[in-house]
């Protein structure tokens, strides 16, 4: 799901409590360690001090006993009374040994305890001078003098004193440390969480916005649509909404002609213009390349159509790029929630499909319509199959005869494309030529057709058939910089005379760089290939165009021939065209001759070469070849002749 990254970034609310808990745990841990170490340290120091004092007392006792010359019992009694505080209630034991006798005095200790204690220190468990008897801890010191060995035991008071002295201070300090830690945790966690949130916001902005235009991107769109169309129970549900897919018509041309920075300028300018039109809650999103999407909640189809028209107008206003006014144009597809789709992806697909339909029909904008879109889907499938069609030579040529009206013989043929579709049967050019132009395969297709024609011409040439074959090329083909070399190489490889190839330039509404076309056409002419202008009299075939291109053949459009008998205007145009062709010194061919009377009239007007169903429909190669080889007269000037099929 594309919405996951955003949720992941937003799901950071737990950082702060976690930080607080972590700080508190660390502070409690540190306080505990600190209290424990302090307590143990103090206890150790107290014990050592007490032991030292006891050792000194034992040493003193021993030396004093040595100096006095009384019986041991008397000496010991008076010295112990002197050295130990009679008011001290601490249980203790003095034990003095000499080589001949011993003496013992205990305070608050039973006989059994005394014996137990003395036994314990005879074999002490360690060298800490600390023993435990009946859950009471005793410190002991033993001094071996020259005459007397003095043993002094005392129940330890150091640990109790440490507790009473140190513990309360440590407790209060710990409370204060904990208090400071809480404040520190709060402040730190707040600062870190705040900073993390800032970074998250920045990341979310980067992740959901386009760097060039600053507009939200696809990720943002999917997030917004998911929230709007599949709301939580608490959110307000959306009644309707419109989604626009906007594609710039001339973006690729601008990028290719002026460079990517010009393309970027164009995108920024278009984004700025659209932003002026799109008002909240509607949002403009750039989803990549030259495609924008607008999601307009609570906008019905009528409102959407009005908005689309405004946007088409905005994009139709020229934009200045490198000092040139470029008219980019836009195609817009509109889908409506919930009438067209309920899911975000489906809504985008509907608008996208409608956009391609709008682009195809060049009518600016289009609302999604199931019925209209069915055709489009069919075309889309055909477009996908085009590659295979060329690779597997499914696109073939049929040939329509051009007949000399004086002899009735075939003087040339026009090659016309047919697609032998494996599923749909034989398709006419009208069903797929537009797809080729839209899919950007015009130049590839042009080369394919030229290759086929030259192969055919080579085969006929080998069989002794010297009939020129004409093919139609779009001006876009002439933008193929390697086209002339390609033709030249093919002619050489196949040993085909260039006179056997004729190129008919079909027109369309595109005004291409006439200088470039002229240069390309001149190069083609220099190879010896004849040039014809197809559909003369319509479209861009102005007289200036004619003068510039220096063509060999004019083909009068069938529209003037169809009603030539009843329409004096058309008759006048054909007559003028005949004169014009004579003045330019080029041949003239009339197209679309369907009746004998049309043929006769045109012949009388001075037309020599004609093409039309009256003589022959476009035929497969073997049939037209049969006609050519048989030198069959297709126009015998007689009534009742049935045109061959």
């Amino acid at each position: 799901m594309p919405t996951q990254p955003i949720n992941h970034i937003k799901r950071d609310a737990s950082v702060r409590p976690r930080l607080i808990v972590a700080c508190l745990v660390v502070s409690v841990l540190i306080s505990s360690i600190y209290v424990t170490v302090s307590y143990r340290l103090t206890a150790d120091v107290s014990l050592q001090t007490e032991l030292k004092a006891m050792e000194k007392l034992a040493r003193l006792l021993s030396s004093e006993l040595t100096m006095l010359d009384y019986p041991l019992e008397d000496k010991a009694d008076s010295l112990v009374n002197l050295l130990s505080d009679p008011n001290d209630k601490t249980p203790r034991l003095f034990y003095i040994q000499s080589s001949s006798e011993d003496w013992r005095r205990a305070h608050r200790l039973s006989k059994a305890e005394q014996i137990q204690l003395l036994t314990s220190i005879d074999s002490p468990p360690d060298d800490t001078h600390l023993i435990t008897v009946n859950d009471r801890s005793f410190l002991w010191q033993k001094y071996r003098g020259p005459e007397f060995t003095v043993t002094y035991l005392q129940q330890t008071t150091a640990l109790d004193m440490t507790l009473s002295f140190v513990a309360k201070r440590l407790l209060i300090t710990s409370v204060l440390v904990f208090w400071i830690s809480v404040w520190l945790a709060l402040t730190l966690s707040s600062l870190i969480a705040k900073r993390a949130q800032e970074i998250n916001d920045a990341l979310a902005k980067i992740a959901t916005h386009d760097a060039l235009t600053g507009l939200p991107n696809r990720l943002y769109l999917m997030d917004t649509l998911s929230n709007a169309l599949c709301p939580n129970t608490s959110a307000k549900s959306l009644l309707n909404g419109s989604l626009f897919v906007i594609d710039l018509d001339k973006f690729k041309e601008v990028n290719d002609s002026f460079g990517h920075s010009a393309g970027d300028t164009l995108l920024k300018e278009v984004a700025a213009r659209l932003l002026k039109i799109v008002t909240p809650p509607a949002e403009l999103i750039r989803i990549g390349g030259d495609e924008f999407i607008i999601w307009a909640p609570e906008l019905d189809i009528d409102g959407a159509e009005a908005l689309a028209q405004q946007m088409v107008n905005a994009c139709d206003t020229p934009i200045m790029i490198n000092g040139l006014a470029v008219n980019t144009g836009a195609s817009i597809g509109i889908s409506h929630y919930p009438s067209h789709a309920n899911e975000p992806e489906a809504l985008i697909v509907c608008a996208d499909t409608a956009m391609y339909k709008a682009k195809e029909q060049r009518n600016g904008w289009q609302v999604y319509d199931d019925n209209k879109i069915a055709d489009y889907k069919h075309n889309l499938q055909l477009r996908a199959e085009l590659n295979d069609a060329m690779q597997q030579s499914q696109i073939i040529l049929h040939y329509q005869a051009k007949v000399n009206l004086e002899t009735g013989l075939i003087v040339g043929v026009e090659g016309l494309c047919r697609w032998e579709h494996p599923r749909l049967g034989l398709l006419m050019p009208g069903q797929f030529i537009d797809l080729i132009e839209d899919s950007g395969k015009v130049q590839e297709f042009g080369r394919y057709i030229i290759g086929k024609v030259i192969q055919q011409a080579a085969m006929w040439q080998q069989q002794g058939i010297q009939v020129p074959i004409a093919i139609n090329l779009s001006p876009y083909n002439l933008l193929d910089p390697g086209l002339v070399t390609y033709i030249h190489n093919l002619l050489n490889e196949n040993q085909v005379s260039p006179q056997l190839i004729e190129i008919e330039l079909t027109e369309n509404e595109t005004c291409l760089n006439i200088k470039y076309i002229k240069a390309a056409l001149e190069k083609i002419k220099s190879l010896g290939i004849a040039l014809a202008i197809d559909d003369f009299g319509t479209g861009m075939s102005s007289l200036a165009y004619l003068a510039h291109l220096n063509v060999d053949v004019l083909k009068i459009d069938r529209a003037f021939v169809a009603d030539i008998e009843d329409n004096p205007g058309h008759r006048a145009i054909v007559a003028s065209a005949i004169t014009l062709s004579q003045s330019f010194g080029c041949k003239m061919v009339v197209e679309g001759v369907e009746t004998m009377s049309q043929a006769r009239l045109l012949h009388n007007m001075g037309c020599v070469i004609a093409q039309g169903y009256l003589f022959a429909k476009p035929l497969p190669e073997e049939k037209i070849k049969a006609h050519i080889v048989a030198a069959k007269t297709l126009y015998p000037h007689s009534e009742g002749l049935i045109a061959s099929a």
Partner: protein
Amino acid sequence: MAIESNLNTVDRSLRGLIGIGVTAFALFNGDIIDDVFIEVLLGIFGILNLISLASGWCPVYHIAGISTRKQ
């Protein structure tokens, strides 16, 4: 930084009780603590809580961006 109350009544009262208790203990504990340093620390702790009681404002809450008053 502007002083703006950020403590609710419970928070404020609690701090007041702690402040009074701790300050009193710091001043009149007799021989219980026997350490001037700790008494001073306790005094500061108590006085800060008393300031919070008087103003209804906690500087740490302010820095941390917390307010119990809103809740």
